[in-house]
């Protein structure tokens, strides 16, 4: 009668003893959980966010806990305040921002590139235009030796192969940007398909994630897909050139993405809602995207808001080299400066800004230097 109780008590004691011990060692080794920054959202931002966080922790001891749950999820999470910031590939509409008291600002950029799988066609050999890409994705251009493709690629031997269209199966910021670009350059696409983070695709089949799309393209002769530049660079699939707004045929590169950003008019974009699609500029890549950070303007806990902004300021100042190495594109220094100024809108319960960027002038110099 007494025995089971004693056993249970013993087990309970051991359990608490163990967890106590676990807690102390964790606390002893790492920074206390209170100072951590929590964020959620864009899967595109996740690899860079993790690398930044690693370096940031080494220098400051503050940890970043980022959940890569997708852009839509990130915005949902910040709206219900379960995280300090959300990260999204598709900008939140200004009306929505005002309604929910949110501020969004760009943190880093990236490019989306078409990839193809054709015999003897290597990266940089295939030329495409936006309207042609739209026709291919609508299933109107069915074979690789179609006159429309041949006209753009006079030097290429194009086989009489059916075009297999590969798209993203999951809802994604990549699809959002890609379809918005097609809608911008092709009125038929805009009318018949439209633009969103998931579509009713007129043709083709869907792979899960960037990896799924590049796997399908790699495995299917005569296929075409679209992925983030970093993924294309990593998987080694053949990347196609695109004709840009100014009519130049250009290859995707960090410089081409940066050129697209250079022409962007951030100052006149309400709520910083700006899509870098089909931007003017001789060297500008037409499908460029931005990762936005979304935060509440009214911070209930000023300390966590300050911690997050301190991290982003650090990333603006020190993160460019790392971003470039991982095939992301740093923001131009003047855009960063503009965003730093907007941070004063993020205030604590007392109405005062939670964070003041320390030394703006040298920061510009530093980021300009590292952007070289």
């Amino acid at each position: 009668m007494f025995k089971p109780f004693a056993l249970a008590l013993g087990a309970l004691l051991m359990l608490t003893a163990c967890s106590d011990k676990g807690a102390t060692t964790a606390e002893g080794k790492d920074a206390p959980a209170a100072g951590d920054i929590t964020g959620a959202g864009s899967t595109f931002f996740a690899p860079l966010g993790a690398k930044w966080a690693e370096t940031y922790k080494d220098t400051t001891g503050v940890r970043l806990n980022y959940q890569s749950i997708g852009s839509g999820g990130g915005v949902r999470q910040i709206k219900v305040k379960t995280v300090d910031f959300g990260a999204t590939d598709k900008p939140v509409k200004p009306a929505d921002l005002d309604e929910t008291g949110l501020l969004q600002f760009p943190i880093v950029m990236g490019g989306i590139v078409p990839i193809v799988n054709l015999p003897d066609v290597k990266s940089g050999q295939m030329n495409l235009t936006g309207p042609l890409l739209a026709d291919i994705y609508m299933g109107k251009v069915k074979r690789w030796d179609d006159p429309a493709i041949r006209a753009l690629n006079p030097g290429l031997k194009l086989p009489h192969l059916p075009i297999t269209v590969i798209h993203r199966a999951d809802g994604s910021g990549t699809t959002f940007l890609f379809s918005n670009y097609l809608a911008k350059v092709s009125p038929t696409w805009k009318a018949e398909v439209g633009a969103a983070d998931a579509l009713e695709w007129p043709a083709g089949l869907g792979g899960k994630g960037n990896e799924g799309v590049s796997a399908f393209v790699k495995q299917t002769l005569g296929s075409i897909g679209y992925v983030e530049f970093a993924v294309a660079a990593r998987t080694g699939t053949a990347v196609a050139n695109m004709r840009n707004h100014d009519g130049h045929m250009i290859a995707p590169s960090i410089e081409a993405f940066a050129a697209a950003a250079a022409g962007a008019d951030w100052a006149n974009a309400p709520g910083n809602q700006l899509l870098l699609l089909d931007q003017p500029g001789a060297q500008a890549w037409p499908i460029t995207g931005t990762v936005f950070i979304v935060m509440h303007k009214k911070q209930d806990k000023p300390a966590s808001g300050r911690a997050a902004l301190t991290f982003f300021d650090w990333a603006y100042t020190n993160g460019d080299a790392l971003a470039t190495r991982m095939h992301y594109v740093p923001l131009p220094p003047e855009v960063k400066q503009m965003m730093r100024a907007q941070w004063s809108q993020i205030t604590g319960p007392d109405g005062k800004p939670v964070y003041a960027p320390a030394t703006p002038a040298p920061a510009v110099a530093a980021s300009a230097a590292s952007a070289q």
Partner: protein
Amino acid sequence: MSLQSARHPDPVDPIFRGLAFAAATTLLLTLGGLIVALMIGGWPAISKFGFGFLTSSTWNPVTEVYGAAGPIVGTLITAVLSLAIALPIAVCVSVFLTQYCPKAIAQPVSTAIELLAGIPSIVYGMWGLFVFAPWFARTVQLPILTSLDPESFWGKLLAGVPNGANIFTASIVLAIMILPYMSAVFRELFRSIPPQVREAAFGLGCTSYEVVGSVLIPYVKKGMIGVVMLGFGRALGETMAVTFIIGNSHRFPDSLFASGSTLASTIANEFNEASGVHLASLIALGLVLFLITFTVLAIARALLSSQRY
């Protein structure tokens, strides 16, 4: 009550009974809560599209019009196909293990089958995408595509993009996933048959084939139907492996080698980014899947409980 406590003076007993009761009710409450949550979450879609949600195959996040017919059909086709592939093999495996196999080999083989059942589904998905699908495309789809007249019946049935991502390959991977589970339960069913039945059949002069086909299988038939339904239930809800190789298009599949989607794969794909009616429609898909699975499992339970094994 007083009588009972007089017989069991141990105070642990009522506590334990309470604990067991609480555990059981918690489970029931969770189930009920799940249904209610799915109903509430999916309500905006159900009220907007009504019965048409089940019959329309439009799935358009741009115009916010959603219908579940494509995924429902994809779910049922893949589940039925995988069952058709897995069932005969599972029966053969379990018959071999219980009737023909030497005892020394039977045990390790059984353990290996049970281990197969424990492989995470994402592993099957990866294997399907990177190994099986390309192999299937090269050795099965391409020869078929080049040799068949595309206008003939077979040409139409087996038409599709030759990259191995289609309903058929998804069904095969599903079959491989439910196979170990089904063979393990079949084996237990065969073992539960009293040895006298088998001995009597042999005593009457039956061949091994006749013993298995005319005596043993009929003996456990009801139990087998129950197992089949359970396997079917598993195939219905399987998510990750299918998502990787089914090709993920919401259209009605028009051939065996066409890409499609299932209820579970659609939810897995789009849930992260969805909001508003899109999100409600995905939750409603969950409700549909829940109802289908529930029906199947209820039938299985009814059949299983009519026969003890």
